[in-house]
């Protein structure tokens, strides 16, 4: 069931989802992409009333399937102009699913600040003027007090209210649907939060067989070294040492791929200095979440990407300083990757004399000041709030923005991981590591190791992982489970949960369909081959230190292979026969 809420006229209605849509798009990202493609003009201004936001859960949400507590938010991004989806864990998703909703479509724009209160199928649009202006922590507490102590809140902070282009949505106070500026879209609609309470017990189609598949999935998660040991014991900060050793740990706005001081912020040091306790999202046997303490504050994270972005990317190597910067981003409702990388870009602009304001690499107090200014759009924060692409363009040096399609890259220098580089360049939402997590095979050896420096043959593997990832995002399960769960078991989970038979091949096709829908949307929005690119720093300038030194990305070589593997023409446009095979020919250009 879909819940549709129009903030312009206050109308609220429930709509069924047809069986064909469920079969073809499943839920989560897939369902959200289908809705946005059908209802939002690709040319629309993302911060206008005409844009829509889809909160979507999936057929596995809040079932016994491991890591099933996630939801996706899909919209058109104000940061990139592409279609965007961002997902988050915690305990918010089961509250939506527990009211029998597969998706909530939010459209229009309220004339004053509001929040949406969905209480076991009773839906209200409520006044939020008293909490407008409050940070995420204060807003969450106020909304819990105003509604019910059992509710879960997904809200924006001051950054979203001020339309910062990389403002995020935060649920459970520190789980973020971080990327692509969805917080700004909520802000543009005067929507402070979605508050949910729902506890309906859900049935799967074949309980007995479903339990058997879940048991097998849990067995593989409990056997896999990454899901069983690394993530459980050290959390994502376990990656710091591994990535640095490979020479792909971006430092000082990607000027280097190796940090001599990384041992001071590695997983072990994290445990010794700031760790308070581990926690897990709904239905998660891994438990990568970390509560920490620094500078007299306690909060969630930083996870690996935040640790990197607010740390070495800005030349900062003090764990406590990084943690404080992370807490501040969470309170303001900022995507930590884009925040850190945009500050890193400003630091390099300043270092090279292109920016009047002195912003030095390694100045942790300045990082905190800039985060605050970004979140409040204050002073130089006005420029930084636009993201690194617009910032670097404004100051005449677009080459210093480390982004693709306007989205800042996360913490892996692509020069030492060729397949991952191709993943960055071809990602439908811009510089993202999660579309095809090639770090898995290229750096961590899962599901099997492949030569990270080779460009030949990578295109097919990137395509496979992009398709599978899009399908997993439609279930919707956490990507960390993908280190262990196979495509066959994903298909089995989906089949036994829905009663619709999916072979592993059909499961992959779901992902391929979603991927091509996103591509078509982006083409209509004006994107194309010219945008499947990387900053020239990665294709022309070699790394000087670490175990990826002497490398550049061989993008041209891989991109042609990729288009062929995808069944696209030489301009990167999906061919009609492919769209027919994927049953989406009506979206043909």
């Amino acid at each position, binding site marked *: 069931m879909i819940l549709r809420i129009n903030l312009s006229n206050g109308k609220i209605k429930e709509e069924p989802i047809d069986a064909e849509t469920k079969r073809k798009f499943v839920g989560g990202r897939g369902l959200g992409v289908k809705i946005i493609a059908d209802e939002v003009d690709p040319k629309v201004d993302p911060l206008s009333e005409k844009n829509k936001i889809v909160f979507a859960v999936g057929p596995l949400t809040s079932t016994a399937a491991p890591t099933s507590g996630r939801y996706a938010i899909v919209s058109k991004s104000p940061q990139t102009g592409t279609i965007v989806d961002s997902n988050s864990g915690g305990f918010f998703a089961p509250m939506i699913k527990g009211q029998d909703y597969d998706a909530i479509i939010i459209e229009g724009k309220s004339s004053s600040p509001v929040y949406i209160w969905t209480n076991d199928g009773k839906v209200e649009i409520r006044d939020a003027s008293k909490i407008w202006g409050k940070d995420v922590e204060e807003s969450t507490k106020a909304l819990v007090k105003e509604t019910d102590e059992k509710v879960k809140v997904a809200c924006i902070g001051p950054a979203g209210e001020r339309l910062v282009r990389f403002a995020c949505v935060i649920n459970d106070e520190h789980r973020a649907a971080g990327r692509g500026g969805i917080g700004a879209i909520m802000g543009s609609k005067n929507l402070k939060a979605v508050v949910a309470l729902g506890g309906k017990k859900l049935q799967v189609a074949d309980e007995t067989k479903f339990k058997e598949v879940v048991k097998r999935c849990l067995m*593989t998660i409990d056997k896999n070294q990454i899901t069983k040991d690394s993530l459980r014991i050290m959390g994502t900060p376990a990656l710091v040492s591994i990535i640095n050793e490979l020479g792909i740990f971006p430092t000082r706005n990607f000027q280097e791929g190796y940090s001599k001081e990384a041992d001071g912020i590695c997983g072990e040091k994290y445990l010794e200095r700031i760790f308070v306790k581990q926690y897990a999202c709904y239905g998660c046997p891994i438990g990568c979440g970390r509560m920490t303490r620094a500078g007299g504050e306690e909060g969630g994270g930083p996870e690996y990407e935040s640790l990197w972005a607010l740390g070495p990317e800005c030349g900062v190597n003090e764990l406590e300083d990084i943690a404080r910067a992370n807490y501040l981003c969470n309170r303001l409702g900022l995507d930590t990757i884009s925040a850190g990388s945009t500050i890193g870009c400003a630091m390099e602009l300043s270092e090279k004399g292109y920016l009047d304001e002195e912003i030095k690499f390694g100045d942790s107090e300045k990082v905190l000041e800039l985060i605050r200014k970004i979140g409040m759009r204050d002073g130089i924060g006005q420029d930084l709030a636009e993201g690194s692409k617009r910032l670097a363009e404004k100051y005449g040096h677009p080459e210093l923005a480390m982004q693709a399609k306007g989205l800042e890259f996360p913490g892996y220098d692509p020069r030492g991981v060729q397949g991952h580089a191709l993943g960055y360049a071809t990602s439908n939402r811009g510089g993202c590591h999660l579309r095809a997590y090639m770090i898995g095979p290229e750096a961590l050896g899962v*599901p*099997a190791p492949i030569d990270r420096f080779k460009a*030949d043959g990578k295109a097919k*593997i990137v395509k496979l992982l992009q398709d599978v990832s899009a399908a997993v995002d439609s279930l919707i399960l956490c990507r960390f489970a993908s280190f262990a769960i196979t495509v066959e078991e994903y298909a089995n989970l989906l089949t036994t949960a829905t009663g619709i038979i999916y072979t592993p091949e059909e499961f992959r096709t779901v992902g391929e369909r979603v991927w091509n829908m996103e591509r078509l949307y982006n083409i209509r929005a004006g994107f194309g081959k010219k945008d499947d690119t990387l900053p020239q720093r990665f294709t022309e300038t070699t790394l000087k230190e670490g*175990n990826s030194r002497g490398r550049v990305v061989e993008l041209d070589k891989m991109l042609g292979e990729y288009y062929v593997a995808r069944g696209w023409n030489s301009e990167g446009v999906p061919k009609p026969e492919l769209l027919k095979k994927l049953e989406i020919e009506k979206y043909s250009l």
Partner: protein
Amino acid sequence: MEIIMEIERKTKELEISPEELAKTIDHTLLSPYKNTTEFKKLCDEAKAYNFYSVCVNPYWVRFCADELQGTNIEIAAVVGFPLGQNTTNIKALETKEVIENGATEVDMVMNIAAFKDKNYDSVKQDIEAVVKAASGKVVKVILETGYLTYEEIVKACEIVKEAGANFVKTSTGFGPLGATIPHVYLMRKTVGDNFGVKASGGISNFRDALRAIAAGANRIGASDSVKIVDGYTWAKLTDWNIEEIPCRLCPSRKASFAKMSKSIFQYYKTKCVDCPYKEFNKFYE
């Protein structure tokens, strides 16, 4: 190096299903601290994936035999493990006891020190005693190839065959190198087609496992068996065969000063110097 490249080609052509791959694997747990929960899991995984056997320390044989009762999964017990330096009597006694407790295969460690002394009769008698104590059950002999030269590997294989064992096996997983392609290939070439070759030590993904099979192994020893089989199901979804730089698979590049004797380290490293493929061996390739 030609052998490595040849095996890489053969690996690409190998036709084997994930189920068949599982059936070549001795699902192994030889940790000093893993407890009942872990061994219960080991047996559950063996049943779920239909591995050929579980391979465990003697202490766990009876437990695994009970857990796997009624299945066709074999139980392999290690003997004289991991150093091979027990006396022959103790190895035989250990063998007798594990067989009584339910082991159907024995993986013994050769007396490497006696072998290095060229005391080949003693090495052979040591193996013969275990073969006798095993009462017709399969005996695999671990050579620990990381301590041996190519010439010594050939000699050791000949002794094992003469002593009446059933398999030669590369490594314990506790020594240097683990299973390498040239070693497995050489072992198969030496023992011929009608003898067992088990590759073990450092086989952590499906590509390692397939390479070992292409090189001549008919049994794989691995702790990462679940990952190997699950990874292989992924590989079936697209072309995962990206050519590997051959040096990465060569014992000469893998030889470690910290883990092996100085003379063996030098033996392997000096082979690199004259290798026609040394251009591949850049330190960060």
